[in-house]
């Protein structure tokens, strides 16, 4: 395949769970690397020491303000990547690292962790802890179509990515409370239960048709709000679900059904 895009995985303060989620596409990951994207930077998988120029940077983890190297690297990432994706709850919203208070071995002074959007402009958010393997796959395929596809494919990819770009503009704080503030308080919740299914720590139950959030348990990953059909819903994209799923399966070499 000609015109592959270049992708890097930039590791900030994260647990490598998001990278594992990317790898959880199994042979799909090889397909992506064979046909669509060259992995030009990835501390875990590629022997490249310095952040290179790249089309898409998948950033995992939040930035430790006391870690000079991380602060420098996130700024460098913004300068060198065309598209910066906050991969996962930590990069997008701080997630569990929001609760850090320092005092750990080796670097006890490391105590303030901020989502990358507090320091740089971010183009696309992929919330959750970690984002589903299939969500990362879909964004990879769409990023490829956006940069290398024909006009129709560009239009579809643009429409698909728009809500994730809007999330990046919405802010760097997320919490189960978003369901209260932006869905229930807005008279939009219809009790479908999707938020409860999406929460990785099971902080949400549905009581009398509405989500109940155990705020002690919420790690602020942003999955519930992003997954709620009443946070964003694009008829243009979702109404074409059958065709899009077929197209993605086709792109991943699973066509024929």
């Amino acid at each position, binding site marked *: 395949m000609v015109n592959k895009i270049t992708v890097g995985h930039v590791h900030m303060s994260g647990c490598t769970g998001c990278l594992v989620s990317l790898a959880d596409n199994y042979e799909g990951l090889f397909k992506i690397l064979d046909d669509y994207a060259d992995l030009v930077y990835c501390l875990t998988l590629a022997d490249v020491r310095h952040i290179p120029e790249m089309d898409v940077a998948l950033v995992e983890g939040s930035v430790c303000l006391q870690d000079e190297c991380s602060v420098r690297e996130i700024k460098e990432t913004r300068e060198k990547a065309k598209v910066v994706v906050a991969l996962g709850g930590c990069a997008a919203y701080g997630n569990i690292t929001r609760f850090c208070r320092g005092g750990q071995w080796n670097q006890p002074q490391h105590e303030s962790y901020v989502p990358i959007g507090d320091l740089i402009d971010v183009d696309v958010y992929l919330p959750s802890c970690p984002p*589903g393997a299939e969500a990362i796959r879909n964004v990879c395929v769409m990023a490829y179509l956006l940069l290398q596809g024909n006009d129709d494919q560009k239009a579809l990819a643009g429409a698909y990515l728009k809500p994730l770009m809007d999330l990046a503009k919405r802010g760097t704080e997320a919490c189960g409370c978003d369901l209260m503030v932006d869905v229930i308080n807005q008279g939009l919740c219809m009790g*479908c239960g*999707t938020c*409860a299914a999406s929460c990785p720590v099971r902080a949400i139950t549905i009581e009398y048709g509405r989500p109940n959030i155990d705020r002690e348990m919420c790690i602020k990953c942003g*999955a519930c709000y992003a*997954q709620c059909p009443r946070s964003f819903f694009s008829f243009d*994209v979702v*109404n074409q679900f059958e065709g899009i799923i077929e197209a993605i399966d086709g792109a991943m070499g699973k066509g024929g059904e």
Partner: protein
Amino acid sequence: MVLGNYKTAVSARAADADILKCSQDGGIVTQLFAYALEEGIIDGAIVAGPGDEPFKPEPIVATSKAELLAARGTKYSISPNMMLIKEATRSYGLDKVGIVGTPCQMQALRKAQLYPLGMRKVPDKIALAIGIFCMENFPYQGLESIVEDHCNIKMESAVKMDIGKGKFSVYTERGALSQIPLGATHKYEQPGCHVCLDYVANLADVSTGSVGSPDGWSTVFVRTKKGEDVWSKAVAAGYFETKDIAGVKPGLDLVTKLATGKIDKNQKTLEERASFGVGKGLRNPYI
């Protein structure tokens, strides 16, 4: 797009008398899941099972025909069926998941397949999604007020509820029927339904409802390749009686009329929301 994309529309009912007995309409949902379960098309289905209070649904993962039968009939109250979508693939270990839901739940499902952020291992495991037509839904307390205060029936003695021909009807175990004009129920509707732009579950594989078909029969839209595959096999195997929808009364004209009415009304609500405050609006989820 009032009725959504579909390949075929028919009027149908289940061939199995046991299924028909306590099903809401033509028993389409229960019969199609039972068939799919028998054939291994699904390993189980998320349905609205009986809850701890009468007509208060509780989502369950049904893996047997008996469980499907126990979940028959419409509960006009919120059943958060999507709540179990990830659980079904995890704790229950299903590889092929069936799910029934209202149009909004079908929207949630398809969004979850396309944007599976918190939905690891869900997208590829949806084997059969059956949508049920829906004009509005009631919070449980709302349903209780309708049945107990307006219809004068104890929730415990109700055996079936039904909406049709402009009336809300409750049937009791002693054979009584209590009806009130549908208008009296409007104030109990859940607010989230007033921005809903789908009546006939456009995004399901197969969607069904009573409207359009004679009593005891259902109107069925077969929408996707998956839906067509399962439906045509089930019909060929004799699991359903079908009639040409063009030959039944009141037919698709009524479905179109109701669907258009719902969409127009709710579109208007969305427009009013845009200037609800002074120089400020409420959120519109549809971008």
